[in-house]
């Protein structure tokens, strides 16, 4: 009889993961901090063309690109003369389960099917759960979804309740837990018991799946406008959406397109706190994931995270919950598109960023998501009020996550706040030094230096300067 205690199961983590992922991550290690990221993506992933084929088998991708003419006009009314870029949106809600997550699930489920796994498991409270079940169903695989859903009072976030319902509607076994990072313990136990595939968001498959999204954007903008987009705005949480999209842009020849990450500001709320859990109105796309995963990707449920957003990010901004709800409302009224709200995080940033860009430029928002009961502005704000959050019109600058949600008094008040890349890079390097394996030589090896420079997208000199600052 195996020891199923918390400590014993966590101790078997590496062994369980190796079996559940079908990838030997040890193959890519280069000693110390370093590993060969591109070789991992190449050996363990699929080419862009293969991914396209895999996704077409299960009706994923080739989603419409829509020009938001009325929203663009609204942004122009608030811009200096000659400013106000054209805003386009990729309607990812048109994927089978209603979000871009189908792209990631498609590749994981293909791999699982072709490697003889009987089922797949995903640990997610987000759209990814529904995506995995939907894709697994098409490939005759069983699915278990592990969700963090309730606080200790048994009160569930309406958005996650809806995602749980959707997974059950597709026929999954849905394990619903109270708040806590020990969800990972339950996840490991179920992986071990079933021998199913870990459909992690952070494998090379999960990232390769999104590369098609970036590539489609380039092809669609090229076909309509004969040029590449100037900027693409991506909601950033675990980093996969940004990493995959950016890699797709590069592969499609749009390396010059600026990649802008956007997250909802939930600073001050603790992601593992039972009390804070229901004081937030966004369960993903927020800084509670975005910042920690950007500054240390290898906190994920795989040994080496394939989502490494700092390698690709040109800018990172935050916006507030109230601003996203406002833009969600504007999208419905101005454009006839009822989508989101969480998926409209990047759209909210784009609305403000378009005002800074020349009007002949193009900014693309790379996702929408389905909306419905629970996953809706009215549902989220009703729930917020019931949990003691003040909802009012005002200046978004006065927002305090967990205390209030401020609907801007005027659309001109929608303004992203930059998180300087320099701060993120410094924070990443701090985490890297803290996590350097014991017994590594005092000085960084050449492999480590090259790896870190790529991780923070710096020249060797730039890296040396950042490290010198760290040593202070």
């Amino acid at each position: 009889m195996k020891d199923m205690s918390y400590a014993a199961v966590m101790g078997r983590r590496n062994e369980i993961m190796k079996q559940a992922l079908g990838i030997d991550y040890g193959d890519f290690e280069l000693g110390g901090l370093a590993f060969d990221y591109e070789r991992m993506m190449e050996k363990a992933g699929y080419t862009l063309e293969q991914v396209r084929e895999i996704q077409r088998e299960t009706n994923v991708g080739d989603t419409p690109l829509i020009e938001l003419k009325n929203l663009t006009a609204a942004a122009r009314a608030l811009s200096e003369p000659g400013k106000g870029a054209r805003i386009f949106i990729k309607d990812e809600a048109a994927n089978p389960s209603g979000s871009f997550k189908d792209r990631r699930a498609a590749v994981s489920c293909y791999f699982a099917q072709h490697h003889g796994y009987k089922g797949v498991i995903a640990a997610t409270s987000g759209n990814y759960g529904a995506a995995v079940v939907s894709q697994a169903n098409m490939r005759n695989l069983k699915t278990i979804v592990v969700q963090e859903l309730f606080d200790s009072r048994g009160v569930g976030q309406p958005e996650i309740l809806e995602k749980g319902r959707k997974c059950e509607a597709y026929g999954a076994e849905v394990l619903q837990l109270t708040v806590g990072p020990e969800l990972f313990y339950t996840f490991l136990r179920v992986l071990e018991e079933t021998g199913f595939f870990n459909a992690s968001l952070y494998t090379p498959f999960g990232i390769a799946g999104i590369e098609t999204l970036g590539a489609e954007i380039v092809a669609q903008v090229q076909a309509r406008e004969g040029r590449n987009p100037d900027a693409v705005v991506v909601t950033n949480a675990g980093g996969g959406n940004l990493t995959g999209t950016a890699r797709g842009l590069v592969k499609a020849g749009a390396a010059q397109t600026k990649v802008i990450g956007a997250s909802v500001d939930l600073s001050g709320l603790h992601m593992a706190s039972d009390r804070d859990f229901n004081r937030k109105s966004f369960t993903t796309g927020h800084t509670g994931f975005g910042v920690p995963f950007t500054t240390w990707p290898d906190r994920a449920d795989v040994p080496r995270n394939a989502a490494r957003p700092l390698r690709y990010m040109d800018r990172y901004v935050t916006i507030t919950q109230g601003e996203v709800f406002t833009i969600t409302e504007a999208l419905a009224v101005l454009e006839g598109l009822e989508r989101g709200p969480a998926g409209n995080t990047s759209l909210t940033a784009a609305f403000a960023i378009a005002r800074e860009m020349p009007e002949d430029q193009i900014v693309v928002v790379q996702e929408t998501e389905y909306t419905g009961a629970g996953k809706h502005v009215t549902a989220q704000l009703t729930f917020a009020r019931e949990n003691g959050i003040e909802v009012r019109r005002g200046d978004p600058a006065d927002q305090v996550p967990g205390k209030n949600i401020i609907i801007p008094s005027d659309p001109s008040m929608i303004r992203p706040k930059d998180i300087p890349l320099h701060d993120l890079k410094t924070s990443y390097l701090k985490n890297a030094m803290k996590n350097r394996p014991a017994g590594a030589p005092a000085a960084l090896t050449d492999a480590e230096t090259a790896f870190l420079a790529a991780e923070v997208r710096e020249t060797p000199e730039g890296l040396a300067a950042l490290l010198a600052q760290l040593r202070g």
Partner: protein
Amino acid sequence: MRIAKGSWVQIEQVVLKPGERAPHVPEDTKAVPLMLWVKGTLLQDASIGDTVEIETAIGRRMSGKLVAENPPYTHGFGRPIPELLTVGAEFRALAERGSRR
């Protein structure tokens, strides 16, 4: 009230008791147990509160405390939000201004 074998039910498990929680979780979380709920087909007649066995949607057997028979989905759309009611009109006015530019 007896719930018949074959009914669609929800069971509950205590995964970790307060003393067993991971060392790094915040104090408010550490003070409460980690709980799990899952639905499935009841494999024997039972009453609420009994320890029972179920078969989940994918055919796995799990046991736990019986807490509900076919619980409803309770999430909805909430109420219209007064603070948002005029937002559409505000943006429409802007769009008209912007398109004349």
